């Protein structure tokens, strides 16, 4: 079954910089922006871009990811000639099986999957970015410039450039230099970690890289530099829209807060829907004495207290007299009566006891300390959780 372009989504990691929040499930299905999970963004982008074969490479707690993706129906990908495929590590004849040891190795181990579709191009995505992008447009440029690899790039403030893979380009837009997290960045063009490769070319470099015992088997550290050194044509695809990496607690909090500013990224735009799997919940209810302002609220919530500048996923309850401010409440968490939650991320099904106080506002905006409570964690009634603290899951046996 031939497809011009298929996508491979790297959803492998635990996302260990998110600490307690990912102790129960992989980062790509972290709740985000109320209604979503992070992986909804790349999956919806694929569907909207007309790419209908997506391999999801994963080896960390795949059960929830598996159930979440299911048949792919919510993203309109439950089709007989394509779909979303979960690709775990596996054993094969004469091999005891190997865990994915790097981003490039993960693709290497799934060459057979890609070959099934006889693709001309392969799009490599990761599961921890929030953005809307038309991959078809990127593919157009890749073809137009006869590139072997096209890398999506975005301008970043020069002072932050050393956190990214930084590209230099010639006047036409071809990449001339690539430096992974350079100390002294020569440009402000950062790689977004989104690549289109001409498949036969990528396959060659993947197979070569496997032979090199020194290699970290990583796209940014090995494959891209190797291609550049060998004189392959690498095109830089410029992207101007909203794009955030949500790999840390701070960036997760910030990008959720961004969702309260529809000018940054318009999720209400019906021409580019971000789709998700929704639980079965009645509408949300705002109580007699509730106050709600500048916030996102999802079906199944029951709000009796005061909520402002916050993002509430489905099935959250906020008791009478409680105050929630600048916080992210993930699905099913309960905020007890008269509790105060500020500048915090509360994980799925966590329970904040009556009158407890979690987190506190910063002294000036540069000093924000986000407080986190892991999924299923509990904060006792009237307890005080200091700003920046991290409560691990400890409540339930499962």
């Amino acid at each position, binding site marked *: 079954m031939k497809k011009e372009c298929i996508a491979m989504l790297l959803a492998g990691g635990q996302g260990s910089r998110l600490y307690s929040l990912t102790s129960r499930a992989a980062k790509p299905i972290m709740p985000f*922006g*109320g*209604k979503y999970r992070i992986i909804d963004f790349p999956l919806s982008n694929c569907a909207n871009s007309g790419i209908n074969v997506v391999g999801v490479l994963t080896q960390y707690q795949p059960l929830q990811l598996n159930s979440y993706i299911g048949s792919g129906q*919510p993203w309109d990908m439950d089709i007989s000639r394509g779909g979303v495929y979960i690709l775990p590590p596996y054993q094969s004849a004469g091999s005891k099986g190997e865990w994915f040891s790097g981003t490039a190795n993960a693709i290497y181990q799934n060459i057979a999957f890609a070959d099934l579709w006889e693709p001309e191009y392969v799009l490599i995505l990761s599961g921890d970015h929030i953005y809307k992008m038309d991959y078809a447009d990127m593919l157009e440029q890749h073809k137009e410039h006869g590139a072997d690899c096209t890398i999506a790039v975005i301008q970043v403030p020069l002072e932050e450039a050393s956190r990214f893979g930084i590209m230099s380009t010639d006047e036409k837009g071809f990449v001339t230099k690539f430096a992974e997290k350079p100390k002294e960045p020569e440009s402000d063009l950062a790689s977004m970690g989104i690549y289109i490769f001409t498949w036969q070319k990528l396959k060659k470099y993947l197979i070569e890289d496997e032979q090199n015992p020194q290699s970290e088997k990583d796209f940014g550290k090995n494959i891209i530099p190797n291609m550049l050194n060998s004189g392959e044509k690498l095109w830089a695809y410029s992207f101007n829209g909203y794009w955030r990496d949500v790999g840390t607690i701070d960036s997760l909090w910030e990008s959720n807060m961004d969702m*309260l500013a*529809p000018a940054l990224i318009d*999720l*209400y735009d019906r021409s580019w*829907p*971000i*789709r*998700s799997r*929704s639980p*079965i919940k*009645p*509408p*949300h*209810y*705002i*109580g*007699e*004495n*509730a*106050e*709600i*302002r*500048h*916030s*996102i*609220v*999802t*079906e199944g919530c029951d709000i009796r207290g005061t909520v402002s500048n916050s*993002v*509430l*996923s489905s099935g959250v309850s906020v008791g009478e007299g409680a105050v929630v401010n600048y916080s992210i409440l993930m699905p099913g968490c309960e905020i007890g009566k008269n509790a105060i939650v500020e500048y915090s991320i509360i994980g799925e099904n966590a329970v904040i006891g009556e009158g407890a106080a979690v987190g506190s506002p910063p002294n000036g905006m540069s000093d924000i300390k986000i407080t986190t409570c892991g999924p299923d964690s509990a904060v006792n009634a009237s307890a005080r959780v200091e700003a920046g603290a991290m409560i691990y899951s400890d409540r339930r046996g499962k």
Partner: protein
Amino acid sequence: MADLHGLIYAFHSSPALGDLVMPRTSASLPFCSRYRLIDFALSSMANAGVRGVGVIMQRDYQSLLDHMGSGKDWDLSRLSGGLRLLPPFGMHGSSLGEYKGGMEALSAVRAYINDIKQNYVVIFRGDLAANIDLKDVFDAHLSSGCQITAVCAENACKGGGDIRFIPDTQGNSKKMLFSNFNENGALSTTEVYVINKSLLVNLVDWCHSNGKLHFHRDALTHYLNEGGTVGLYVHKGYTARICSVSDYYSANMDMLKAEYRNDLFNDDNPIYTKGRSSVSTYYGEDAFSRNSLVADGCYIEGELTNCVLFRGVRVKKGAKLKDCVIMQDSVVGENVSLSHVIADKYTVFSDGLALSGSHVLPIIVPKCKII
């Protein structure tokens, strides 16, 4: 998997619902922010392990077709059994108007009924808002030994008819009342029945050959006259039949009360509905909301008090909504003031407009109207 087959009456458009049933039947009326009335019948059946359901339709059923699709949202898309839509077959020219009664509708799908593999059938009105534990009803039916069991509401069914049963000492009934003349202990029927398939077939044939059209007036009366007994099952939860604008309005307002809402929508017996992928609801800097139910996908910059909002509604700055039901994708312009208004889908209220109905006579704005 229960030995029980479902039949839903979804052909009726109650005239007292006025403009609300112009584009649809009663069963496909939107309700409580994200549901359609027929979701209650379908979900009650699905939750009881009913695997085959026939939906009796007649006209104006496009919105029902769209809503139900293959039945997947109720887990009724099955290899055998599953959801079957039953328009009138083989009735060329015989009945153009709406079915005049339940038995006429059943006669029209006689061939389907004949092929039902289960030994028992549950009949459910598509316009009933009630989450009924049909597994429990079915158990009661089997243990009573009656050939038919009526699900009665503890309090008279809101907006319901007056048909009641007088229980005997075993809690069964041999007497049905059509008037609402007060008789102690009589129980109102919700018109949900569990019935032995063999009896159902007999009653359909009897009515057909005698030109009788109605379920209660003809079929049940005949059954009781012949010495039959009706088992009675009392459903204690919230029950509303939606036959008029006033029924519709007050049932939506009832949903603002946690007691009623939690009774209809509970995690043990969920009410399923057609999925629609949408974003969460956004409340702006100056938004204000009190005692309201809001679905996903709304964008609220104005004020809501005692309102029920469906998906994708936009309420612009300065707008004030009180005691309103606003259906899907409607837009309320800036500084609009509405009270006691029911707005159908895709309504647009232009900036500055003011409309005020009353609890007894809410104003209905028909579908797609721009005012």
